[in-house]
């Protein structure tokens, strides 16, 4: 009954440890299904409660120390220390808590870590985002949650965002070579296996993985499994299969089968198909056989067949490594070819074979340097929603557009004018008027004020420029949040838009105004922040309009 009052929902309590001190207060530690909590003695609420997902790690005090402690370090960097104070069972208590946490934490870690790692990675990869984070979150303009709210969408969504679309790392072709056997001094060999190598073996040889899952741990320990693997003929390609109880002989057979099926499938590119290269092979019995026919397997020596086994294995290994690296891509193309093959009958498949062949043939006869223009290779447009592209945003009102043809015409016109320009020397400016005109047109002159870009580059120190840039980014981010609320059609959005407006105001107060004052202090007369203020003003007025409309609707 005591517990139920303390936990709002009935949670499963996994462990209760009494006499645990936290901040020099006695209390009880509870380990529950999803969180760890501590309540001071005599009170029916928790003063400390951490979700397991928030905990980065636990630390314990060294054994010899007087105080028996357990520290929890959170992802935020904070930490909480518990002191096990029950004199007789302190160590045992802590061990129990530690053991349990050890089991629990990894389960939650994965999920939390993934998100956290993702955030971390995004911040590391994108310095602009990082700056934004510093500007907005660290300075507490908006909360971290708000900041991540629509950025992490990509992670949870299945939609592959560019961040998510990382290339898969392939497998080194020589991963087996990395397992150099070392003699351990007493007539034995030691193989060093790492998790990476095991992963490589599994990815390259699915048959071995299958064997592993079949046999470990029911029949063999992991160590035994790998020992057998290294002893097997399967690993040593040059040995001829002799042992029958070798569990890997089946793998070899499967490989053989896979290889055969690959071979019978044939090749897609007709230009490398050696079988159909010759147009007319000589009939049996004709021709000069300069090489000794070694057709009969009987008179092949053991060495020969072991040699050819090595060669086969190398081809197979390379093919498997290659396939493991591009398995995902393969799948898609396989499907594509399958769907296309449904309409063709068995070998009369040349209905759709020609495209590959045609392309390859064209490639083969092409002389790129003999053609006139080497047009740059264009990137195909990848449309996610083609209907949106087709219909596009329609301009609201008709406007005066300048087409590129207009521009070209006017450029031509100007060029033409320039070419035909004839100075009429009788009607020239006086020298003073000319000098002042030149002055006015030089940088810094009256007529050159408009070139703001140039002005900023030249007139504002770089640090101010940098600061301004950050302000822009931050303001842009806030405004994006703000505008994304429109149209405001849910209560949630209503709440958000109000919050965002206050965020904007806070931004203006805490960031923009100090900056403005600063540049004023530095006598930078140009109105650098004008545009920013304008943007904010637009947002405010939008907000105003929305609010008045809402009021009207309410009344």
């Amino acid at each position, binding site marked *: 009954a005591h517990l139920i009052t303390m936990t709002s929902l009935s949670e499963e309590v996994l462990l209760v440890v009494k006499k645990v001190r936290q901040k020099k207060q006695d209390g009880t530690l509870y380990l529950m299904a999803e969180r760890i909590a501590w309540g001071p003695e005599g009170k029916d609420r928790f003063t400390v409660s951490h979700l397991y997902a928030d905990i980065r790690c636990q630390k314990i005090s060294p054994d010899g120390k007087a105080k028996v402690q357990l520290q929890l370090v959170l992802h935020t960097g904070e930490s909480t220390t518990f002191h096990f104070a029950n004199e007789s069972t302190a160590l045992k208590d802590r061990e129990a808590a530690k053991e349990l946490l050890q089991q629990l934490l990894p389960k939650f870690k994965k999920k939390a870590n993934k998100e956290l790692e993702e955030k971390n990675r995004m911040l590391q990869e994108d310095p602009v985002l990082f700056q934004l984070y510093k500007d907005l979150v660290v300075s507490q303009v908006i909360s971290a949650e708000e900041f991540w709210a629509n950025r992490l969408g990509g992670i949870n969504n299945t939609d592959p965002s560019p961040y998510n679309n990382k290339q898969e790392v*392939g497998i*080194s*072709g*020589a991963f*087996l*070579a990395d397992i150099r056997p070392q003699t351990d001094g007493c007539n034995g060999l030691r193989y060093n296996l790492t998790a990476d190598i095991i992963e490589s073996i599994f990815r390259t040889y699915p048959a071995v993985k299958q064997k592993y899952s079949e046999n470990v741990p029911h029949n063999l320990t992991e160590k035994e499994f790998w020992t057998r693997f290294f002893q097997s003929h399967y690993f040593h390609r*040059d040995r001829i299969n002799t042992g029958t109880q070798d569990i890997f002989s089946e793998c070899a057979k499967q490989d053989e089968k896979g290889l055969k099926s690959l*071979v019978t499938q*044939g*090749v*897609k*590119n*007709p230009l*490398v*198909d*050696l*079988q*159909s*290269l*010759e*147009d*007319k092979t*000589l*009939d*049996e*019995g*004709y*021709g*000069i056989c*300069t*090489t*000794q*026919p070694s057709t009969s397997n009987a*008179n092949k020596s053991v060495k*020969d067949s072991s*040699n050819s086994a*090595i*060669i*086969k294995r*190398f*081809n197979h290994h*390379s*093919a498997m490594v*290659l396939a493991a*690296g*591009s398995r995902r891509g393969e799948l898609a193309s396989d499907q594509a070819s399958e769907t296309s093959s449904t309409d063709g009958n068995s*070998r*009369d498949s*040349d209905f759709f074979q020609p495209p590959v*062949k045609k392309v390859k*043939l*064209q490639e*083969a*006869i092409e*002389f*790129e*340097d*003999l*053609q*006139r223009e080497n047009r740059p290779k264009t990137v195909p447009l990848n449309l996610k929603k083609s209907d949106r592209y087709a219909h596009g945003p329609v301009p609201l009102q008709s406007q005066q557009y300048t087409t590129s043809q207009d521009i070209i015409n006017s450029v031509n016109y100007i060029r033409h004018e320039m070419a035909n320009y004839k100075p009429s020397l009788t009607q020239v400016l006086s020298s003073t008027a000319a000098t002042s005109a030149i002055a006015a047109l030089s940088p810094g002159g009256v007529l050159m004020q408009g070139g703001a870009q140039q002005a900023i580059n030249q007139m504002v120190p770089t640090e101010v420029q940098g600061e301004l840039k950050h302000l822009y980014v931050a303001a842009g981010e806030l405004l994006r949040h703000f505008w994304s609320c429109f149209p405001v059609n849910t209560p949630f959005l209503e709440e958000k838009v109000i919050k965002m407006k206050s965020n904007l105001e806070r931004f203006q107060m805490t960031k923009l105004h100090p900056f403005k004052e600063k540049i004023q202090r530095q006598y930078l007369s140009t109105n650098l922040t004008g545009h920013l203020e304008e943007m904010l003003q637009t947002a405010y007025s939008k907000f105003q309009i929305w609010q008045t409309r809402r009021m009207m609707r309410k009344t």
Partner: protein
Amino acid sequence: MKLNIEGLLVYFPYDYIYPEQYSYMLELKRTLDAKGHGVLEMPSGTGKTISLLSLIVAYQRAFPLEVTKLIYCSRTVPEIEKVVEELRKLMEFYTKETGESNNFLALALSSRKNLCIHPEVSSLRFGKEVDGKCHSLTASYIRAQHHSNPNLPVCRFYEEFDSVGRQVPLPAGIYNLDDLKAFGRRKGWCPYYLARYSILHANIVVYSYHYLLDPKIADLVSKELAKKSVVVFDEAHNIDNVCIDSMSVNITRRTLDRCQNNVDTLQNTIHKIKETDAAKLREEYRRLVEGLKEANVARETDIYLANPVLPDEILQEAVPGSIRTAEHFVGFMRRFLEYLKSRLRVQHVVQESAPQFLKDIFDKVCIDRKPLRFCAERLQSLLRTLEIADIADFSAVTLISNFATLVSTYSQGFTIIIEPFEDRTPTIANPVLHFSCMDPSIAIKPVFQRFQSVVITSGTLSPLDIYPRILDFRPVTMASFTMTLARTCLCPLIVGRGNDQVALSSKFETREDFAVIRNYGNLLLEMSAIVPDGIVAFFTSYVYMENIVASWYEQGILENIQRNKLIFIETQDAAETSMALEKYQEACENGRGAILLSVARGKVSEGIDFVHHYGRAVLMFGVPYVYTQSRILKARLEYLRDQFQIRENDFLTFDAMRHAAQCVGRAIRGKTDYGLMIFADKRYARADKRGKLPRWIQEHINDGSLNLTVDEAVQLSKHFLRQMAQPFRQEDQLGLSLLTLEQLESEEMLQKITQIAHQT
């Protein structure tokens, strides 16, 4: 652009031209003008094919009565298809420029396997099966039986073609193999027979060597092609071997056993027919009395009419009486077979000439020369009479009868070698009778005699003068062209020593030498670290490669190479190798990089191009000499020495170097391409070897790179690759190795161009 080649207007479907292309066309035009034969060597990747086509098509248009047909022979199916595609490009250009569609008919011809559209027949995998099945549906007597018994299956595509297709000629246009099939499907006609029929009136025919050089096929397909044709043999560096192969026969015990079965079957069939339809046999006898001329009737469809070489005089004569009746002939064949069996029971190697063989057979079993000569023809007649559907089964007896005809027809240029066992396995009896042709000119002679101009061309034909000698013809032009280059995009290096100064060589004495193998491994390892994308390495033979790979594996060299690139290895199985090749290309494509270990004289070295990143370096481990211990080769060398005054060593070196050049030439397929060519054998440095490389490779070997160590080669390669990695634009080439029409027509350039062709 439109070119003026000594007064001939040539349409050239590109905006620019390589200087050597212009030079090549000049030489070609002179050959055609003189109505003679020519030998032209031009590097691969300099647009040889399009130059050839442009000039000959222009010539055909300008002098339609002088040159009526172009017969373009290439080696592989992809090559054939490439030629047709280039031709299509040219014709499109003609249409664009002249505004009128010209009435040229050009088509590719290939075996049934590549052209058949019959759903059942075309699903068979092997060419021989397709041929056999096709024959069982289209043979004349099958079709005749079909008239009385409509349930008997025939090929509807052939029937349709036979009844309708012959009347209307194939409309003008360019037909590749797939186009022919599409056309055949649309019309319901057999594309294969349509193509075979259409080559007679086509302006351009593209097919493989065999249709002209293998007398068994040439007699069927190409016999009636017009005399005023220009014949081009592209990729002709191995043409002598093609000629020899098509005329040689090997007979083993297995062949004889199968032949025995064939003869038994024939005898049984004859017995049966005698009881039921004796008239048929009498009819045949009557025909044979009248001579073989009439045997032409059903020639087209019945492929067993193929005849090795049927001398003209035979066609005039009647079949000798001793083999005229079916039973007598079968008895004759039995006797011949028994004789061959007895000859195969030998304990030691026997070598003899054709006249010796004939004398022996006359002494032992009283078989005369004359009936032997008729053997092939007589057998075909019998097979036709007996209406045997599946001729594939009778390949053994056909082979024996072809042998009989050949051995009795030619007294020179052939040798007979009977070996009781293979050299490597002297304990296992496996007697073989080799009847091998040693004189390539026999097979190609009819081509030179019949056609007005024959052009032999390839990227590697050096030394040029040897081809006219071994093929026995008088060319009017012989020229070798170099590749004009704005940047030196090929880098031939001769690596003669390892870093430990051990001489590198694949010669027999050091073949098993551990130090050499290790150094070869080091060379490959070092290269794998510095060369981007693909590396191709060639070995001198398959056995050699197997041994080296095994010992590299033991020494851990391959594992180290795998850290840099994936390894793929050619095997003796073509399907497996195709897959390895495709994977190799995939690995080059996706950036991982790969090494292909392959064999000179293998299929890869002859048929596969490694353009751009598919081959940034080619390594040639050793000099690819042919296996010199073979008796057949020895006999051939002797023959070459006696007949053509070609010294044995000269020929062997020539043969090795042309294969080496083929291998390394695989990597450079154009002026924008680049690649290293590494000759890893100290023997390449010698003048007699180096001098036999094509000029376009030779001229880039400088004296400093003749005997490099592995390290030095690596340094040079690094430097070369870095240079090549710089951007290379069209402007860099213009005026040097790439010309506009104006540049071409300038006096100075024309002067330069005359130097490109190297006359011999």
